[in-house]
């Protein structure tokens, strides 16, 4: 075992750290889940892109710098350590892009990826429907073949679409063969949200931001070139994306290491010099949260070593999702316990913890609820019977 980063990885870390120190906005940007905040975040995304940091792990021809997985993890650690803004491009660069790299044609890669990296085209995810959440294969929105026009016509409704009110395009699953078994007959479409027939209605989330949207599709034309993978093969294409969403791509350890470090700072700023500095129960909980963040870091390094050796991410991604989502809740609960009555406030510097707590609560729900993830672990990793 060799647990050190190479000299060139350390040099990359130093370069990232210096750039972020000089460029991360001193004042936090307004929430990226509001219209004004989204625009401010896009400006930040474009600065990241111009400096070569938007998608470090992608090949240069698509806007990246060909960084290794290890370098990507280093970048992520530095990004969150610097307190840099949330990535409003995440559903594109972390969820759709891996699928485009795997299933897209050369034409699709060339058309979609550079605009995604540069944040000139933003993407949201069209999975959930009013009657299909955890049971994703139950989707009812449909695509009807239009041979004459060389494409498909979409009908139906998507919901809980994060930043759907602000994004340009949506990737989503639609039923194109109603007679097929429910996991078959689905097609993966790339939809222009400005196209005729699309209606987007913002929905206010728990934290008060209009970060959700309902997307209504009424006879929306999508050309054949915007089908990802083969028609009626959308389920297997989509499953590649859920792996990214549950696994390390979307939520790298850097995020939680940074939260744990900020929690310790908060503890010192509020407790030092008071009785609470010696409260063993409180100290134990903070320590355990820090240990868990470390455990996530080292479990990731263990996993990445296997990926670098050529292994593919499998149902283990469900363990990862369970762990980071529940850790994030614990970290924020602890912060609110430290804040005491101030946890009620939604303005001021410390309110980011209250906001963060509300966001953390979505973790065990999105990307497949944790109840479903536990079923996946039991059935696919441990081999327990489905029925």
């Amino acid at each position: 075992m060799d647990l050190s980063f190479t000299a060139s990885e350390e040099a990359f870390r130093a370069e990232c750290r210096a750039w972020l120190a000089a460029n991360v906005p001193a004042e936090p940007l307004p929430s990226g889940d509001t219209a004004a905040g989204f625009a401010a975040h896009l400006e930040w995304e474009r600065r990241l892109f111009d400096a070569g940091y938007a998608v470090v792990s992608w090949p240069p021809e698509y806007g990246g710098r060909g960084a290794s997985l290890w370098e990507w993890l280093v970048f992520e650690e530095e990004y969150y350590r610097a307190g840099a803004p949330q990535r409003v491009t995440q559903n594109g660069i972390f969820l759709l892009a891996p699928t485009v790299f795997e299933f897209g044609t050369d034409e699709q890669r060339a058309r979609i990826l550079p605009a995604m990296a540069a944040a000139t085209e933003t993407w949201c995810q069209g999975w959930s429907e009013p009657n299909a959440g955890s049971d994703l294969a139950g989707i009812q929105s449909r695509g009807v073949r239009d041979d004459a026009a060389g494409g498909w016509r979409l009908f139906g409704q998507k919901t809980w679409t994060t930043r759907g009110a602000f994004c340009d395009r949506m990737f989503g699953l639609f039923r194109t063969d109603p007679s097929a078994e429910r996991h078959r007959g689905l097609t993966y479409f790339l939809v222009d949200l400005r196209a005729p027939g699309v209606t987007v209605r913002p929905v206010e989330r728990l934290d008060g931001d209009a970060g959700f949207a309902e997307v209504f599709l009424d006879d929306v034309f999508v050309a054949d070139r915007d089908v990802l993978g083969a028609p009626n093969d959308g389920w297997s294409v989509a499953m590649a994306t859920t792996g990214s969403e549950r696994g390390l791509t979307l939520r790298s350890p850097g995020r939680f290491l940074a939260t744990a470090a900020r929690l310790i700072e908060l503890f010192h700023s509020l407790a030092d010099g008071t009785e609470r500095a010696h409260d063993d129960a409180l100290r134990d909980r903070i320590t355990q949260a820090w240990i868990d963040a470390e455990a996530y870091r080292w479990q990731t390094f263990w996993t990445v070593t296997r990926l670098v050796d050529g292994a593919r991410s499998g149902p283990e991604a469900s363990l990862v999702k369970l762990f980071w989502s529940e850790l994030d809740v614990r970290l924020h609960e602890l912060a609110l316990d430290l804040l005491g009555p101030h946890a009620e406030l939604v303005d001021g510097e410390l309110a980011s913890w209250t906001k963060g707590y509300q966001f953390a609560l979505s973790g065990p729900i999105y990307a497949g609820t944790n109840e479903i993830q536990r079923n996946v672990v039991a059935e696919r990793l441990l081999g327990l019977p489905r029925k």
Partner: protein
Amino acid sequence: MRFAFTDEQLAFRDALRDLLTQECPPARVRDAWTNPDGRTGLWPALVEMGVVGLLAPASAGGLDGTEVDLVALLEETGRHAIAEPLVETAAVAIPLLRDAHDPRVADLAHGRIVATVAGRTDEFVVWADSCDLVIASDDSGVRMFARDAVTLEPRPAIDGARRLSWLGTDDTTGEAIGDADAAALVDDRGALGTAAQLLGLTERMIDMTVAYVRDRHQFGVPVGSFQAVKHHLANARLALEFARPLVYRAAVSIATLDPHRSAHVSAGKVQANEAAALAARVALQCHGAIGYTTEYDLHLFMKRAWALARAWGDTTTHRRRVGRAIL
């Protein structure tokens, strides 16, 4: 960065697994409860294979191995619940004597003598009545005694294969074998070794329970098809997944004498303690009444887990050690 065992390390572990699968079925662990020395009789085989002397210098009959090599093997011995002072001799006493340039390291590596060790937080010493050397440490340093030079007061333990004694020592008869730093290293090595064994025990209890709930039918279906049972076992698997890497990382930290090694070891021991405690709890619950008998094998593993989760520092002790380092 390369956080994985080498093919050689895995091959050694697999060879040990094959040996123990053959030689240490649960019946052998059960027999240790009633054997005069409370042991599984595997010491000669472990010496022969090189497991005992792994950390000893080649010149003393060892393999010049590191804690990273050892941790994979100890995990395997946990999986089979061997009842032998392997953590005490192979993970603690041998590197202690090696670093002290004491020639008895060769006697240990060759299996001519066996040692047991009490860490700074341990009140009892295990399997001392069948060991030749007894090592005890406190904040001032480490002392070593011939077994006959100490007072041993046997104390029955919940795991009948762990022969515990209260240890009475007389400072005039022991020999100083290490200073305060060596005493700290003794604790770190013992905690790492037991943490590794706890990982193996955790996996074994999960495996046993998975096999049971797949087979056991109620209401006309396997009980393992019930979501409540699935979620219990998924939680145990989750705890194991996020304990292992911290234990392996702690092994590297000891092998490289990392300045933060004590915090790393404690973090690993906390996670391993918690994973094993959860797995034991879940295993019993999912087995139901059969797991509550001593005729069934689960209790052999469960009781070992309870014991090792408190040996060489319990969860609170180790968590607070981490806390002092980071808060």
